[in-house]
């Protein structure tokens, strides 16, 4: 024991343990953590696994691994509670959410300590970050419950939500899932991670304490198999998953075609970009808050540090010096910066990747100082000498170690930043606001922090681009994930296309005596089908109308490539895009009679109405082009938090067989109004209307490649589009089987799919055939955080 005089010289911090007697007693009284179903704590019957404190390796208790039967009883409880809960006035639900928020605050110390013991994260973080954000999330969503009817007219709750959450922010992820679901009027079955079941169990206690109606929140403990049972349960209407991209893909395939709404918040390898004009000390501190936050077990962690060459050595020197002051150890000690990795297995995985990084030639810099003898501790660090091709540059380490790269110019920084399958977050450090915002605009990520990192707020949507998943949590965009438009599930089944493509010669076509050659429209040019085949198109009474090009895989490839090159479209002003849409409408008006006749020949009922509605729809989306805007959200003081609606890039569109003009254009127009380029597959049975349409497109100043039109066998082309990794989103209006097929195929790059499950839509009805849902589905929300201060 050093004397006070000694300490005056060493100026050591000494131990500062957080008391945990009450929490430990609470755990000790629970030899098995069971489920919470229909408002009751249920004694588990099946298998269990140990719950370990990763910092001490002590076995805390056991947790039940929920069986299919237990999942089923939880889903039944949620279903039973749904009618009454969803029928409550928003104000009544708001009262419950408010009470939960209050009770989280009343138990903040207990929950913080419990989270730290279970997960290994430092008490500072659970106390100052996790738990306050949990309370904030429930407060915020109490507000959405209150305002639901006025803010989301014509929407309904989805139903029973199956929610699967990870171990890195156990209670916070619970809050992100449960709060919006309940606010919107859903009931939930939630599965915590088997590594960290404790705070969810304590949360169940809060539900009891505030008198939440039984069955509104059900918690089934368990592992991956339990999660799969929840996701796959036929009576679950919505699946929300946060976790690895790998499991996200499995879930996507598992529930393909089920009609379940899906949101995925997956992995990341987020760039942390330091420009030469950055405040380097601030950026170094940013690294601390990025990759050394929560032991690096953060999906949105800035794990790829990109530094401009001229300042890289100085930056790395500063980073090394800062790293030396990081304190790693007992997470219950209030002076620790880094606690324990969640489990020994996870630590092993991290160490394996670190060894691989070194074997591939990178240099690993680690914080000096001994680690505790016991427990899953991992010293913070960073690599230098990593190249984009190295495993550690591409794979999420999910530990407190970043890779680094240097760049020469802002362009190169953006290229390197976007050289990843993921797109969750980015952090940009520059004192030049032009450069910072330019980078924020160009980086492919759902979240961008300028001169900051890892700042969260319930009102700021959180979620990724690309293989980081889709859907948002928080704010208005987050609420939309738990609501559904009332019309979407009511349509009758769509009949199979009346026309099966036949490439053999048939009867002479009616009409003009000069032969008409309908081609594909790719990159602004009419193109013959790659396969050199056309199919006979028949109209009313089976008369031959002509031949349409039969596109194949390669035509899809060419069209996607052409769309990929039309990058200027998204960069145009919304006003410019609106002008193009107005001009398109104008040209359609000029050729109205021709389209009416063409539609009439196909046997389409009310051809005049279809043409007129198409023209109106072009006007409507032209009007929306510069009005469907993002927002500036009130998050924290002295922060501008912007939500920007960004186009996906290239979208695949598979048009319905019916309404060959209106159906096709109702899908194309919102997509391009928002700045996307599209590869559209026209009505299989009536493709000649599309072939006529490209003549209008050619005269309407639509830049080459913005709209590409394919004709042919719907599901063959849809499959190629769904599988294509360079197609960022897909809308599909085909059959139920086709919906299953495209949703399954979309798992490759995890593109969001909007499929109608083979239900007919009333295209003539403006509630179903146009509207905000189309616009919302045509964009991905990017949240940009810009703290300010002179």
């Amino acid at each position: 024991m050093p004397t006070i005089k000694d300490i005056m010289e060493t100026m050591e911090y000494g131990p500062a343990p957080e008391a945990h007697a009450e929490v430990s007693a609470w755990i000790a009284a629970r030899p098995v953590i069971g489920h919470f179903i229909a408002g009751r704590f249920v004694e588990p019957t099946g298998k269990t696994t140990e719950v370990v404190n990763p910092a001490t390796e002590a076995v805390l208790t056991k947790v039940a691994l929920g069986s299919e039967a237990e999942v089923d009883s939880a889903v039944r409880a949620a279903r039973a509670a749904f009618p009454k809960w969803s029928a409550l006035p928003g104000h009544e639900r708001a009262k419950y959410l408010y009470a939960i928020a209050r009770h989280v605050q009343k138990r903040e110390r207990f929950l913080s300590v419990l989270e730290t013991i279970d997960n290994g994260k430092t008490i500072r973080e659970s106390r100052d970050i996790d738990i306050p954000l949990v309370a904030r999330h429930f407060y915020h969503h109490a507000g959405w419950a209150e305002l639901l009817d006025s803010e989301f007219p014509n929407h309904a709750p989805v139903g029973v939500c199956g929610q699967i959450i990870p171990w890195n922010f156990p209670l916070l992820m619970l809050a992100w899932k449960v709060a919006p679901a309940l606010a919107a009027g859903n009931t939930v079955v939630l599965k915590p991670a088997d590594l960290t079941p404790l705070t969810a169990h304590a949360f169940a206690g809060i539900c009891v304490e505030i008198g939440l109606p039984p069955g509104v929140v059900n918690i089934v403990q368990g592992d991956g198999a339990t999660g799969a049972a929840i996701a796959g349960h036929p009576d679950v209407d919505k699946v929300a998953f946060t976790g690895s991209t790998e499991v996200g893909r499995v879930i996507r395939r598992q529930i393909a075609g089920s009609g379940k709404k899906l949101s995925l918040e997956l992995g990341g390898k987020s760039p942390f970009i330091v420009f030469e004009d950055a405040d380097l000390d601030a950026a170094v501190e940013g690294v601390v808050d990025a990759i050394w936050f929560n032991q690096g077990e953060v999906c949105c962690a800035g794990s790829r540090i990109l530094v401009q060459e001229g300042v890289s050595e100085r930056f790395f020197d500063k980073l090394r010096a800062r790293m030396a002051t990081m304190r790693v150890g007992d997470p219950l000690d209030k002076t620790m910066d880094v606690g324990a990795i969640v489990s020994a297995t996870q630590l092993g995985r991290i160490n394996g990747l670190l060894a691989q990084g070194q074997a591939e030639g990178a240099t690993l810099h680690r914080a000096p100082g001994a680690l505790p003898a016991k427990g899953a501790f991992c010293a913070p660090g960073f690599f230098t000498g990593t190249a984009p091709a190295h495993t550690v540059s591409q794979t999420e380490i999910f530990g407190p170690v970043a890779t680094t790269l240097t760049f020469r110019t802002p362009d190169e920084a953006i290229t390197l930043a976007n050289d990843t399958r993921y797109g969750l977050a980015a952090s940009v450090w520059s004192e030049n606001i032009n450069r910072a915002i330019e980078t924020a605009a160009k980086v492919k990520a759902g979240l961008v922090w300028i001169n900051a990192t890892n700042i969260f707020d319930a009102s700021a949507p959180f979620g990724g681009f690309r293989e980081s998943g889709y859907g948002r949590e928080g704010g208005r965009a987050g609420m939309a994930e738990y609501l559904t438009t009332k019309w979407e599930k009511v349509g009758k089944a769509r009949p199979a296309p009346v026309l099966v493509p036949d490439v053999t010669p048939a009867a002479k076509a009616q009409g003009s005596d000069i032969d008409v050659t309908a081609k594909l429209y790719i990159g602004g040019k009419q193109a013959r089908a790659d396969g050199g085949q056309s199919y006979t198109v028949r109209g009313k009474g089976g008369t031959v109308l002509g031949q349409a090009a039969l596109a194949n895989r390669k035509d899809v490839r060419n069209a996607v490539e052409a769309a990929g090159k039309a990058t200027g479209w998204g960069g145009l002003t919304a006003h410019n895009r609106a002008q193009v849409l107005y001009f398109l409408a104008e040209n359609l008006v000029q050729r109205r009679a021709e389209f009416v006749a063409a539609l009439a020949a196909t046997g389409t009922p009310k051809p005049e109405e279809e043409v007129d509605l198409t023209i109106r729809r072009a006007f409507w989306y032209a009007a929306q082009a510069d009005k469907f805007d993002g927002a500036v959200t009130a998050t924290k003081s002295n922060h501008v938090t912007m939500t920007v609606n960004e186009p996906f890039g290239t979208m695949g569109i598979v048009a319905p067989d019916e309404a060959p003009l209106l159906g096709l254009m109702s899908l194309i127009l919102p997509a391009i109004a928002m700045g996307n380029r599209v590869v559209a597959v026209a009505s299989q049975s009536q493709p000649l209307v599309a072939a006529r349409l490209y003549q209008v497109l050619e005269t309407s100043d639509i830049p080459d490649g913005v709209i590409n039109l394919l004709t042919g066998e719907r599901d063959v082309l849809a499959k190629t589009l769904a599988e294509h990794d360079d197609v960022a989103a897909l809308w599909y209006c085909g059959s139920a089987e086709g919906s299953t097929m495209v949703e399954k195929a979309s798992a490759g790059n995890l593109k969001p799919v909007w499929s109608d499950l083979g239900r007919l839509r009333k295209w003539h009805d403006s509630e179903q055939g146009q509207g905000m849902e189309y616009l919302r589905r045509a964009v991905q929300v990017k949240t940009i955080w810009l703290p300010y201060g002179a």
Partner: protein
Amino acid sequence: MTDAFPRMTGTPFTPDWFDTISVNTPAAERRASSLAGRRTVKKDWQAAWLARAITCIDLTTLAGDDTAGRVQRLCAKARNPVRADLLSALGLEGLTVGAVCVYPTMVPHAAKALEGSGIPVASVATGFPAGLTPLPLRLAEIRYAVEQGAAEIDIVITRELALTGQWQALYDEIRQMREACGDAHMKAILATGDLKTLTNVYKASMVAMQAGADFIKTSTGKEEVNATLPVSLTMVRALRDFRDLTGQWVGFKPAGGLKTAKDAMNWLILMKEELGTRWCMPDLFRIGASSMLGDIERQLEHHVTGRYSAANRHALA
């Protein structure tokens, strides 16, 4: 830990070291506010840190009604900052403050009262607090204070030169002040509450160090805003950059607004985290304060007795 180091000499005027600097204010505020959440000290460690803070205090009186008697009383407190029974319980007999800081005309009284104690007398000078008297008078004032027995001189910079970007002129003035100080150590008060932006604070810090300031100091205590953690963070980072560039060590003195034991802890944590343990020692760290000592005394008594203390149990300064 407290090895001697060569007195800093300054450098030629080198604007390259600060011309393009831009301090990000929200990031500095974020770091400053997270420091106290990241570190804490308890029990014996807390007592030791508080005792360390006492050794770093420049016990200060800078008021228009200062008298010889008032200064003598302050000096007596400087010699015996904590009740003897408490010091003995803590094993810290002989603990004193870092210095006593007064106006130039009070220096002789302080020098006399502190004779033989080893506690240096610090004097403000150069037309404190505004610093707008003519330069020859300001330099003469330094020489006067040194002649009267001040071992440390707290000068104020000409804010106009900083606010209008006349860094060379500011450098030249401070250089002359440093020469006037002779062997007395010079603390350059930047009056950061007047400079307003952290970027100004960084630049002024760099210029003062280049011109030979042994310490850089935040405030006179008379500005609207005194020492804050973000300002202090900016100054110690400038100091660290200067150290890395030149190998010369410069001290830091926050002043004004530090009133509680908790403040002392926060600033010591800042020093330890940003600069290291060596910069927690009184030859490189001072706290300009008058009422802080009373709060620390109460905390130390609580540490010894386990009972919360009252102000009237401790001698007035």
